[in-house]
């Protein structure tokens, strides 16, 4: 079997790149380890900064994936890839060999496993959830505490698994600050009576419209920001979570009990990213894939015919992922 171009990963970046190539007349095969594409995006409710419904985007991407020049192979993972005689040979989990000229790696990220921060009690106390769990609750339009009641207090904690040398991730995941602000607003919209707190180290409201959400979250929604990391969480007999933190602005230790503690988990390279970047010798810091040059050749790698796009390189927000996918497609076309 001969394929011109293979894209590994059918998240927003993989699909966008595939679609760009398809409309330019190239035949593309997209491999995805899950049956369904867009695993991460499907679990989102609304997108920052404008609260667009995520399902709208999901639909758009699904349509793009229908392009006649795109072959979608869901439920197939690539377990190995090797450069042979000027072509890439990919091995699938079914032992099939796929021979192609070019490969775009769009294997993306995985959310940080919050149970690795044991002191925060995820997986131990039901009142402790991650930003992903929260997103699912928001998607259902119903936020509940550990015993199924409406929470009267919700606390968000930033930088879980990011900027933390204890877990080996010194980098900032870039999207969780604004995600927390966004989720806090949504919680407040659903539960106007609830008290909502956000514990942070510093707030990185870098994008267009982010600062506005941040301001409005305080002014219009009464969300309270506390500078300080939560050092430990413990379950109480009535299913709440007691947290200990230090308010680093006042310098005072504080204790608080809350119905829900939401851990804003960061982004780590996905298994596929780690494995394939390793196989191709382009493994960068923290297991992300490394591009040739961050400024000029950010979609190109040191290996001929191997391109990168999206969050397999580093934490990225959706907007950036989409532009990056287009630029990867462009790089590939240029080399033709």
């Amino acid at each position, binding site marked *: 079997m001969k394929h011109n171009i293979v894209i590994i990963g059918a998240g927003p970046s993989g699909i966008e790149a595939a679609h760009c190539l398809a409309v330019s007349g190239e035949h593309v095969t997209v491999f995805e380890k899950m049956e369904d594409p867009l695993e991460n995006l499907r679990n989102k409710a609304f997108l920052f900064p404008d609260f667009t419904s995520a399902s709208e985007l999901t639909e758009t991407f699904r349509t793009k994936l229908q392009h006649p020049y795109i072959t979608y192979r869901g439920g197939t993972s690539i377990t190995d890839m090797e450069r042979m005689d000027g072509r890439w040979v990919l091995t699938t989990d079914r032992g099939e060999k796929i021979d192609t000229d070019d490969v775009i790696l769009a294997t993306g990220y995985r959310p940080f*496993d919050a149970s*690795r921060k*044991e*002191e925060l*009690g995820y997986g*131990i*106390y039901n009142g402790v959830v991650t930003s992903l769990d929260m997103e699912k609750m928001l998607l259902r339009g119903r936020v509940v505490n550990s015993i199924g009641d409406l929470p009267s207090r919700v606390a968000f904690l930033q930088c879980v698994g990011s900027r933390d*040398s*204890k*877990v*080996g991730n010194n980098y900032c995941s870039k999207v969780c600050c604004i995600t927390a602000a966004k989720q806090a607003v949504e919680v407040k919209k659903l539960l106007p009576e609830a008290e909502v707190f956000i514990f942070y180290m510093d707030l990185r409201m870098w994008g267009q419209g982010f600062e506005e959400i941040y301001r409005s979250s305080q002014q219009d929604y009464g969300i309270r920001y506390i500078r300080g990391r939560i*050092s*430990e*969480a*413990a*379950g109480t007999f009535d299913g709440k979570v007691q947290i200990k933190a230090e308010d680093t602005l006042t310098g005072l230790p504080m204790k608080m009990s809350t119905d829900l503690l939401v851990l804003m988990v960061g982004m780590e390279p996905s298994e596929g990213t780690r494995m394939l970047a390793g196989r191709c010798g382009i493994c960068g810091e923290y297991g992300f894939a490394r591009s040739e040059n961050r400024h000029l050749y950010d979609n190109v790698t040191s290996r001929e015919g191997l391109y990168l796009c999206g969050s397999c390189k580093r934490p990225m927000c959706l907007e950036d992922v989409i532009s990056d996918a287009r630029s990867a497609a462009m790089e590939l076309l240029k080399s033709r």
Partner: protein
Amino acid sequence: MKNFSPFVIPFTVGLIILLAACCIKWVRWYRHFTPVQKSQIRKNLISVNLIRALVESVNECLLHHRVFRRNLMLGYMHGSIALGWFLLIVTGAVEAGLEVHGDRHVWVAVFLRYFVHDPEAVCPYAGIFAQVMDSLLLVVLSGVSLAFVKSVYHKVVGMRKVTRHTAFDLFAKYSLWFIFPMRLAAESATASLYPNGGWLTDAVGSLFSVETARLMELPLWGLYSFSLGLFFASMPFSRYMHIFTEVPVIFFRRLGVRETDRRSGYTMYELSACSRCGICIDDCPLNRDLDHKTVQPVYFLRDIRYKRPQLETAEDCLMCGRCQVECPVGLDLISIRRQMRDRGTLDTAGTYDYLEKVKPFNAIGRVGYFGGCMSHLTPGITESMKKIFDAAGQKYWYMDENGSVCCGRPLYQQGFSVQAAELRRKNTRLIKDSGVKILITSCPICYQSFTKEYRLEGVKVMHHSEYIAGLIASGRIVVTRGDESITYHDPCELGRGCGIYDEPRKVLEASGRLLKTGQEREKSLCCGHNLGNTLISFEEQGKIRDSALSNLTAPAPDIIATGCPMCKKALGTGNDLKIMDIAEVVARRLIFS
């Protein structure tokens, strides 16, 4: 004077200096023993311990049994010189007693061959003595040769690093090495002139012509005496003082003398009992993983003994106890390190006022459970313990669930002895007032503190592994054995610190498939996060941890288990391996009836 020649003077002077210095030191140090230490000695003086001490002295100071266990060649090196020389002295004295009558000065036995030219005439066994003495000399010479080879090629005795000695120690060492070849040469020269040699000295002596032997005899005996004198005079001030301190240390220890929080006369004995053999260097994690070259006990003790202690050296130690396991003299290295960190006098008034707020609790009929400060960061452990208590139908009092008071050991290890005592006082009162008879803790740091630093008469302190092992053995809880494979990390504080190795293993074997690792039990590797060291950086801790992990992951287990919240956190840092406490391993496999 009969049986005298001027060449004996250097030896005699050296011997006088040695004996005088030793006596002065011994007496001075003994006077600095604490009253408790002295009363220990008086109390146990007439007891079987004395015999045990004697046996240990022979085993260690002469046979070097512990060194042999570490490495055969190294054991032979130490043993051949020590035992060989000792027997040379004893046999020589006996022989002199039989062969010399009158004017038996101290040096006569040492230079016997020079003074007794025809021993067969006075003693029928002289021939046997000559052969035995020659053989012993050869044994010593082989040890010295091995020591020489070791100094250029350490691997021959299984050492990666050897001690970097001071110039003075080297001087003493070379004079020691010189003694035996000189003795051989001198005795051989005499043997070629008179019929008093053994097989070795006769053989070497036959290489001398009569003229050379005549010419060389006296200068060779002079050199022999001179090297003996030099060595003896340098002994009390060099590492060789250990020869005269190891035995008293063994006796004191057997009689129940222990190190105290402050330096005492006993410490002085211990300091001098270190032979600077350097055995403590190789396995020290700070050496192995971080290449910190000056902090190991060999250097640390030397610095204190020569009164140039370095605070940084005192601080840069994990207190993991690995060196103590290896030390052939069995010195209490951790306590000496702690003494040097003395910060007890630091003013911390007011810091502990909060203790008053912690209220007593009546827990009669329950067991006490003390999670420890670290367990607050590992709720997986404390939650599992709750499950286990419930499954066993055991009522418990979670003593430090809210408003916990630290056991004090982290402070204690850092030298805050007075402050730690304050915390101990509070906890002791809480425990005693509660009425519990059993106190269980998940933290080996607290466990070591409760068992060694507290006085909790009437309360049985248990590590949770002991408690759980008991529950399983008595059938109070039932666990299903899974087929997950497990390797176990011995926490320093629990294993080397308290000698608990078997109970955690029993518990794990009941829950899964326990695999062996390359270094376990007393040889286990520190996780790098031991509270003993506040000096090394996070990255440095990481390197030590990775060593420990490579040992634990080598058999490719599904789970790495440990029995310490600190180790659990440390081992899980910067990776996503499955690290679990034994309580968690058990709690997952509980069967509720």
